[in-house]
């Protein structure tokens, strides 16, 4: 099949960027990224610069890949990442527009590559249980209800790709953060820091310049890991309770600097 790709080319963060059209020959068994590999090999042979895009595991789990295809995060087949999207979902002669995640908190690095380190800083703000290496109690001394454990696993499946942010008209990181808050809130081990965690992570979201959640739901619709909107509800509920508790507990609020780690 022959496709026309309209791809966003941007040399670096200060370049204004523009769309450039390319023709590529593909077959239905290729993954979308393999189709781009074919295009890039062709560009290199012609002495042109290949299109930069992030990718690594190509199994849909590392969360490194991702861009918009005709305005949809990871393309038309949900749930799934762009590395697991196969060309059998497209047809001969189709024209596709490829552009990077668009969000103020995700500055463009080059072409389809963006800087998502803001998500790391949200985790650093509280997305963990504080446990010292070697000091944990015997594993089966902490029993976990199977239903809670399964729900925690569903929330924990987030791959941190940033599609939720890219799909949201407000570029909100609520689904990403809600997933981690919910996972740890469902487990007994997560209880001691539950309310400090949600306050600190929410504070970091704001500091990074992500927008507010207005319950549109596009984030969950495109999420390749199937993270549910109810994780945002859980986060909001915990946030309200935390805000009330805060007067009694006054947990420390620690916000990281939002400077790029690549500078």
């Amino acid at each position: 099949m022959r496709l026309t790709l309209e791809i966003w080319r941007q040399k670096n963060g200060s370049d204004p960027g523009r769309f450039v059209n390319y023709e590529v020959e593909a077959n239905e068994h290729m993954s979308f990224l393999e189709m781009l590999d074919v295009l890039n090999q062709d560009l290199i042979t012609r002495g042109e610069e290949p299109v930069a895009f992030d990718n690594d595991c190509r199994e849909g789990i590392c969360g490194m890949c991702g861009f918009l295809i005709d305005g949809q995060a990871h393309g038309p087949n949900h749930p799934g990442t762009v590395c697991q999207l196969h060309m059998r979902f497209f047809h001969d002669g189709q024209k596709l527009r490829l552009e990077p995640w668009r969000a103020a908190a995700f500055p463009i690095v080059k072409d389809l590559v963006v800087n998502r380190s803001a998500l790391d800083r949200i985790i650093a703000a509280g997305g963990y249980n504080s446990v010292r290496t070697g000091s944990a109690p015997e594993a089966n001394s902490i029993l976990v209800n199977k239903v809670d454990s399964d729900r925690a696993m569903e929330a924990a499946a987030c791959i941190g790709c940033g599609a939720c942010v890219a799909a949201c008209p407000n570029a909100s990181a609520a689904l990403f953060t809600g997933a981690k808050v919910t996972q740890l809130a469902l487990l007994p081990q997560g209880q001691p820091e539950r309310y400090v965690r949600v306050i600190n992570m929410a504070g970091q979201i704001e500091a990074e310049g992500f927008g507010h959640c207005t319950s549109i739901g596009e984030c969950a619709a495109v999420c390749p890991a199937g993270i549910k909107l109810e994780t945002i509800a859980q986060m909001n509920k915990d946030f309200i309770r935390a805000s009330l508790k805060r007067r009694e507990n006054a947990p420390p609020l620690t916000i990281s600097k939002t400077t790029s780690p690549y500078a």
Partner: protein
Amino acid sequence: MTELNSKIPAGPLEKKWDEHKAHLKLVNPANKRKHTVIVVGTGLAGASAAASLGEMGYKVLSFCFQDSPRRAHSIAAQGGINAAKNYQNDGDSIYRLFYDTIKGGDFRAREANVYRLAQVSVNIIDQCVAQGVPFGREYSGTLGNRSFGGAQVSRTFYARGQTGQQLLLGAYQALMKQVQAGTVVHHSRREMLELVVIDGRARGIVTRNLVTGKIESHVADAVVLCTGGYGNVFYLSTNAKGCNGTAIWRAHRKGAFFGNPCYTQIHPTCIPKSGDYQSKLTLMSESLRNDGRVWVPKKKGDHRPPNEIPEDERDYYLERVYPSFGNLAPRDVSSRQAKYACDEGRGVGPGGLGVYLDFGDGIKRLGKRVIDERYGNLFEMYERITGEDPHVVPMRIYPAVHYTMGGLWVDYNLMSSIPGLFVGGEANFSDHGANRLGASALMQGLADGYFVLPYTVSDYIASGGLSKVDTNHAAVKDAEREVQGRMDKFLAIGGKHSVDHFHKALGNVLWEDCGMARSKESLERALEEIPKLEQQFWSDLRVTGTGSELNQELEKAGRVADFFELAQLMCYDALKREESCGGHFRVEHQTPDGEAKRNDAEFAYVSAWEWKGPNETPVLHKEPLVYENIQLATRSYK
């Protein structure tokens, strides 16, 4: 010449680690913050080591080439992590896990290391549960287990088909916590391109900032490499695209011995290759073989659809050849049997390079709901890639390069032959011998990172003798010049072919001549062909763009240049090892029924290779493997 000293502690096997730990030197808490440790790589071993060292109070500098530490390829491990908890009351014990691992590795691993691994496996589960890793659970609230290849007990802990992801996120979260606390400074999108050795000790690294192209130097009191395996030398493998051998290869060139480079694990359950454009192979978890049955048609060239082949015309060859272990025969053994079936012309699917993994019986026995609960996401992944529903049509699978048991040689303290250079996880050679059992890689990564390196790195630092160095040191400047020179060289070649062109060609040679089966003839052929290809690479490579920006072609060029040298070392090692063991199968050395034939009298050693310079033959050193607690036995799963 560096002396090989494995530093295995004296005393009974089960007391070695405790005794050793009791005598390791400590650094006073107030002094820890005066010491810097570099940790390269943020997979299970790297993230857990960096988090633990940071928590202890050291200043830690952590590095990864991806955009976030959470992307490390440990995240893709699916099936599970072993631990000798004996929660199933099925006769498991530390000794049995130790013995299974030694036997699984075809008696080519160090007893003391493997025993320690089995010992600390128990603590790993505790640690991860406390972190909130959502392991599979029973309705009682206790942890669930499943069985895996090479074992007759259920000791594998799992988080659906995403165990690696959940364990890595646990370690990553611990790492990010230390970043917030200020004890770890993490650097993303940095690639280590040179090791700095000063006065014979590892004192720093040179990295390239992959976004700005800036060459940067970092000095420390110790350097820890947890940079994964080198399976991508074959081009097609189950490894992530970025996995590479550059960090350990650069260290090897600076004096770190390379252990057992020829030991490559071929995983039996990958989705078969579908075309020349293919960029990587996707693994289907070994856990699928708990409820899936492997078969091929009995008749050669039987191209009927699988559901039209009646039961009595199917050969469930693993169950037939290995009645005790059946479909759970270990990876090397299962891969070889799949190869035999396909070599006989009984393979299925396009090109005849595939065998069936059939869930028909499993679904009949347990119901679709139970099967989906156990393997749902793997079924979805398979369907997404192949367009076939494995509930209805059996999966097609074929062996593929998966894990490299070889890596930098390390002693019992996980220190390489360069003092101050530690190596953890898949990047070192230890623990798995000639073949790795399923669910053991996660165990080793976390054992090294959480429970071994924090002790042994401390001991090294406490032993003193470390002079103060900074980035103006002549050795640092030399290393920087070396890196810059290489980058300039790649950009200046101006040839016709892309990096991938050469990488694919190299991968083909290695797969054909140093892959699932090797012979003297094939290895000698590879040693003639690889240098020719390498020469073409250096004269006809085209790298577009510049060195002062994000340039993914330039990144790949450096990695493939190193793969060329490493590939030759793999062939030297495979040629020297005149026996078959685990993932190393020399066709000259097999039993009449096609099983691997070891030669313990001559080859019960770890090969540790010393770099002698480009185009020079490397020098082999041998670390004899002394078995004090077990008897060497012919491996049988029958």
